[in-house]
């Protein structure tokens, strides 16, 4: 690996080389991603939702969420003033939907981070350590995998009480086993490669092997998986809030559906109260799924071989 042999190239430090290589690889990935139209469409939809979430306070003042400041009638149909009608307390459904974006995104992303961290840790550890420890971790993963998600989440949410943080925690700690499985499989394949044997022979410890060699190799998979998990986390948040296990005083799409359901919007035929949050959930979940699929195609070498 001496620099002398590449006389034409400028002299680069090892770090610069790495950086250049990463930049090139990111560019390649982006080009590959761009070639997938569905992924781009998903990204666009996602962008709209992120903008809505970020600029919600500029579009609708937080006062519009206060029932005491509500100006509309009870379950008023859409009008020029309230483009999506009003809820059971006279608040604008449009304002609620826009503000609800924030909770859905925050919960989706935060819960996914928890789930990813746990899943990656358990996955790498169980793949790296064979024997008892690895086996035990794998059994734990299997065990969590077979517990039906909803009852476990409901039980946890009931015990912990209803708050936004708890919803995040509940979704986070119940949705990691899929990731762990995936990461474990990839870890096993990475561990079988010769350069890891070399690292071991040269005296690299467990920590070194896992963080320097295994982790960088599983990261692309984890990233692709993350986008898919966000979609599931958002759906879970909606489900839990709809079942009344979320924070009832924070506007989210799930809690809107819950309130619509509880206040007789169905009997009253108030479709403007039910449809917008429902369609938003569908749209954002779809967007995340499309982006996730596209990313997976780009980052997962096996998926690309097709």
């Amino acid at each position: 690996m001496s620099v002398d042999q590449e006389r034409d190239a400028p002299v680069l430090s090892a770090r610069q080389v790495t950086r250049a290589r990463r930049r090139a690889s990111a560019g390649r990935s982006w080009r590959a991603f761009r070639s997938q139209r569905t992924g781009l469409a998903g990204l666009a939809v996602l962008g709209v939702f992120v903008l809505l979430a970020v600029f919600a306070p500029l579009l609708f003042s937080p006062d519009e969420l206060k029932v005491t400041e509500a100006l509309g009638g009870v379950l008023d149909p859409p009008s020029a003033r309230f483009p999506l009608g009003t809820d059971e307390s006279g608040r604008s459904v449009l304002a609620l939907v826009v503000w609800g974006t924030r909770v859905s995104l925050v919960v989706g992303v935060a819960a996914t981070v928890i789930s990813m961290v746990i899943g990656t840790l358990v996955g790498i550890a169980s793949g790296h350590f064979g024997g008892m420890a690895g086996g035990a971790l794998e059994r734990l993963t299997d065990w969590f995998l077979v517990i039906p998600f909803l009852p476990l989440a409901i039980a946890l949410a009931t015990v912990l009480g209803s708050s936004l943080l708890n919803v995040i925690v509940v979704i986070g700690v119940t949705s990691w086993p899929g990731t762990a499985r995936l990461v474990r499989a990839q870890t096993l394949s990475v561990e079988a490669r010769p350069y890891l044997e070399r690292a071991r022979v040269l005296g690299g410890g467990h920590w070194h092997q896992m963080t320097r060699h295994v982790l960088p190799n599983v990261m692309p998979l984890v990233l692709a998986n993350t986008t898919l998990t966000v979609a599931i986390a958002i759906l879970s948040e909606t489900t839990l809030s709809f079942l009344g296990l979320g924070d009832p005083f924070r506007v989210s799409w799930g809690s809107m559906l819950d309130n619509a359901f509880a206040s007789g919007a169905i009997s009253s035929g108030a479709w403007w109260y039910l449809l917008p949050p429902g369609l938003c959930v569908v749209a954002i979940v779809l967007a995340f799924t499309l982006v996730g699929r596209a990313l997976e195609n780009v980052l997962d070498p096996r998926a690309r071989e097709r």
Partner: protein
Amino acid sequence: MPRPALSAAAAVVLLALLPLGTGGSATGAEDERTTFTVGMSQDVDSLNPFTGIVSSAYEMYQLNYDTLTDYGQADFAAEPSLAESWEVSDDGLTWTYTIRSGVLWSDGEPLTARDVAYTFNRVMKGKYEQTNFGSYVGQIASVEATDDQTVVMRVKAPSPTMLHLFVYILPEHIWRDIDAKDVTDFTNEPGPDGIVGSGPFVVKEHKKGQFIRLERNENYWGEKPAIQNLVFRIFTNEDSLAQALRRGEIDFADDLGSNVFESLEGAEGVTQFPATYSGFDEIAFNVGAALDDGTPIGDGHPALKDQRVRVAISHAIDTEALVERVLGGHGTPGTSVIPPLYQDLHYDPGASAYAFDPAEAARLLDEAGYTEGPDGIRTMPAGGEDAGRKLSFRLLGRASSQTSQQSVQFVAGWLEDIGIEVKPKIVSEDALTEIIGEGTFDMFEWGWVVEPDPDYQLSTFTCANRSYKDGGSVFANLSDSFFCDEEYDALYAQQKEQIDPAERAGTVKEMQRILYEQAPYVVTFYYDNLEAYRSDRFTGFTPQPEPDGSLLFQYGTHSYRSIRPVTAEDRADGKEGTKAADDDATSSGLLTTAAVVGGGLLAGGLVLVALRRRRPEHDVE
């Protein structure tokens, strides 16, 4: 705590399997056995009359058990029940009740004056038994059965409540086996023969969160009801309750929300009945939780011990807006704890009412030293014990009630406007009962259904009815605000002995005035009981009081005993069948909604499925 979650899940499952129906009445009223199915949104908390506190539980008690006397259907006047007649001595101190002869318990054992004496003595000598019934027996010195048909009660002083003793007479041969210790966790769930009682119906089956089934008591002493099976189905969602009524799975819907109630307008075969009711909702304060002996308990916020803070909050709550927004106009703004339905006893503060005025509320708080800190939240006055502590109150609402949750949201908003931080939380009614008993709250939203005799309601504010300690654990009593006031207690004792109705009403009003001034509660509203029933199937409902009182959930079982299936003659009268035209509009609107929602979900689902199928087989797992 697990109950609301599970029942919510159950609701979803129910919705998914819509054409279910356990009632059985769907097949029509011309069944061999007439089944009348009531849909309600509140489960019974306990079938043990010493334990239950929710109104649906009391409905079961009065269907299953009798009391000595009843409240009349038309105007709440006392009328005979188990006691067919009574006499009072000239000095007013001895009451002699004559019990009907030949009355049998539902298991065939004879019901005698001894059962009556047993029940009363149990309540008077008990501790746990006092919680629900203590207020009826406080004035009684002794109860004795002189023979099988005669009960003699001696009172400490002449009493106006001796014809309103709402104590359910229990069979001694069953209850003597349940001692003072066992009774605290005795569930009284029905065995194969049902719950032994003497009322017109017998509870035969109870599936928690699903239904309660009663059968006509064939040993009933009075005229037997036309209904043979009486089923109370519990719905966790009002939409499904209303839909069940539309489809005819149930015959009666009780306690509907205003939106759902109005959506039933014009539904075929359904009659809406917005009944004037004796219930109110309140925001209650923890005015200083303590045991009945004065030992402080709990962790209520010290600011709420200050009457000036409570009055300021009263000014900050817009009761008219609550009636308009939460009840959809089906109620009246609240003031005192005896509803205006009882016009002779209701205290109307008139000009001295706390008008909705946030500026006035803020002024009162400023004046009392609760000034705003740098973050806009008020703090305890300087120099006091908790100087500098923020005015941050926990406000609890009930998971089972949309009205409660909405009220909580409104109140939280108004309080924030005057610089008080509110931490709202929604809990189940069971959990709330426990929290209240232990005094670990600042404010909560709940309500009472008030009896025609004011004694019970007024007793919920006496010092003696605060929580008590028995063998190390704290038990909740009737008081949920822990209000304790000497003058009030004295008046409470006084009204217990005032025979002259006008004089007593004066005292009762004075007590309400004290409560209004001291403000342990902000009575938010008196709600109407929004009821609807299948008038194409059943008729003969009797409102209590006439003309627009509640059709079911009354004081007594009047309607249940007079309801009968609609006959061909009734139909010939032509009262029915005229409302069908309008119904199409509503149901088509519903269908559109369902179609659009369903379509949207289906489309989303299809996309997901399509994606899933496109997914390379080997990529995951």
